[in-house]
């Protein structure tokens, strides 16, 4: 029996035998964590992340290796860094070790900034989502409120609140939260306005989802990329606000946070530069690291920039 013919073309039977699979032509699994790859490609963002890790280490882990209170006197007053009888970072107007105070001062600042960022993101996303999703009069009312908070002189408003209700962590967090949420709210509102008419939202309605479900389970995850990026930036500005308030003395003096310590040392800073420089540098590097990270996240979560 010869080979079969199809349309007059002889079909070679051996050609039907499966050839060895060429591994290189098989579909490769998509690269894992493409976002992480994009983030890593942004050198500045990686630097920012390392910087933040170092700062967190200094603030939360390093103090565990030291004994005694940081407010104890260690030597003479106003001793320059490295001077005889002084410490690595010098001593302040009470003879305390500047290095140790700055080391632990970050915990108060970071705690306040972190909590404030939570308030800001929580308030901002909720109000933005409701305004964008429902539109109409809900949008109108919420946006007028947002604008009200946006045109308030932020620091002044925070000062008034803290002055009225006392400088506890709670009031400082709320004060910072109240002045900074409008940015996020507007951003989330814009995302909701854009997404609520997309087909997949219509499809979610068509399977019988209610409003709450559509807002929080359908649309919200799609707005997370912008929210995450923005919240790192918001955290940076929360740190600046906290430092500003503390500098003016509007913080818990027992915390000895960076801003408060700069304020305490400012009377002597012409002769004692180390008292204000080291806490200042910590604030600077913390805010810098957060905005570098935010920049890198922007690349990581934006699929259009991938493969660039």
């Amino acid at each position, binding site marked *: 029996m010869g080979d079969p013919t199809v349309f007059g073309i002889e079909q070679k039977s051996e050609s039907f035998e499966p050839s060895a699979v060429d591994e290189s032509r098989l579909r490769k699994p998509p690269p894992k964590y493409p976002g992480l790859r994009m983030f890593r490609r942004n050198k500045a963002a990686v630097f920012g992340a390392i910087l933040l890790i170092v700062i967190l280490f200094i603030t939360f882990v390093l103090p565990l290796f030291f004994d005694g209170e940081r407010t104890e006197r260690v030597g003479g007053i106003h001793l320059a860094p490295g001077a005889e009888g002084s410490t690595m970072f010098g001593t302040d107007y009470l003879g305390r070790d500047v290095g140790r105070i700055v080391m632990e001062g970050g915990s108060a600042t970071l705690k306040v900034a972190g909590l404030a960022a939570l308030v800001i993101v929580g308030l901002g996303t909720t109000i933005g989502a409701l305004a964008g999703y429902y539109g109409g009069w809900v949008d109108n009312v919420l946006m007028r409120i947002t604008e009200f908070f946006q045109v308030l002189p932020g620091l002044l408003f925070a000062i008034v609140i803290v002055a009225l209700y006392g400088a506890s962590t709670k009031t400082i967090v709320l004060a910072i939260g109240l002045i900074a949420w409008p940015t996020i709210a507007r951003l989330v509102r814009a995302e909701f306005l854009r997404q609520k008419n997309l087909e997949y939202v219509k499809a979610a309605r068509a399977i019988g989802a209610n409003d709450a479900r559509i807002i929080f389970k359908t649309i919200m*995850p799609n707005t997370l990329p912008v929210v995450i990026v923005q919240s790192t930036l918001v955290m940076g500005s929360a740190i600046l606000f906290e430092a500003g308030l503390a500098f003016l003395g509007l913080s818990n003096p027992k915390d000895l946070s960076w801003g408060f310590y700069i304020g305490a040392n400012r009377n002597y800073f012409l002769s004692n530069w180390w008292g204000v420089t080291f806490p200042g540098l910590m604030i600077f590097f913390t805010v810098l690291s957060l905005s570098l990270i935010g920049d890198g996240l922007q690349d990581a979560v934006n699929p259009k920039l991938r493969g660039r």
Partner: protein
Amino acid sequence: MVSSEKPLLSVQGLTVTFDGFTAVSELSFDLFEGQTLAIVGESGSGKSVTALSIMRLVTLGTRAKIAEGELNFRMPDGSIIDLVKADEAQMRDIRGNQISMIFQEPLTSLNPVYTTGNQVIEAIRLHQDLDKEQAHQRALEVFQRVRIPEPEERLKEYPHQMSGGMRQRVMIAMALSCDPTVLIADEPTTALDVTIQAQILGLMRTLQNETGAAVIMITHDMGVVAEVADDIVVMRNSKLVETGTVYEVFEDPKEPYTKALLASIPRLGSMTGKSRPELFDLVEMEPGA
């Protein structure tokens, strides 16, 4: 259709307006169990608005209003509900559960941040009292039913990892996951290429035979109508032009607009014997004629 049978969905004098502009005007038709009804018409003729009105999705987030008419829907227990007057909670229960909808753009009608399996499971759990494991099992069943190869793996994939035809199958799977009695397909094949169109249409017909659901197919493609529909409703400028069975309408269109619509499809073989393709006459129609 047997006229003595009670209709599953009876649209009576449906009028939908947008800020005074009438998008659908006094539309009436009946839909019976197991029937495929095609609503055809050009862009802006009101066919999609009709579909969205049946789901009562047209009034959400737009200024549209169902001004008049009744949408009498027969529930599985035999009671009749007017969808125009039903409250929102009732509508949510009906959507997806009794009446499902497939959209035009399979590329955008799935949520990009969830796996397809997750989305189908969510749809199932919205209406059925099943735990995660049972819902997963059910999702696997519907994926198999819409002939998705390797359903177990596909359940774990995100929409962007799938082709357009595959995504439309997922949409159909989602729409069928709660065994609806009416399936509304709003131009389900427009965004797909011709071979996939044929596949999806074939699939929908098979599924209809299997489930016995009634289908409202919204399209502007007469080829699709001839392929799948039992009955046809021709719409133009928000009004019903002509209705009847596909055979009646294709065989002997009564209205000039229907004739023009049918004549707009070039016939296979109409250029035989000619040395090169020739222009054919465009049908000129006065608006409202």
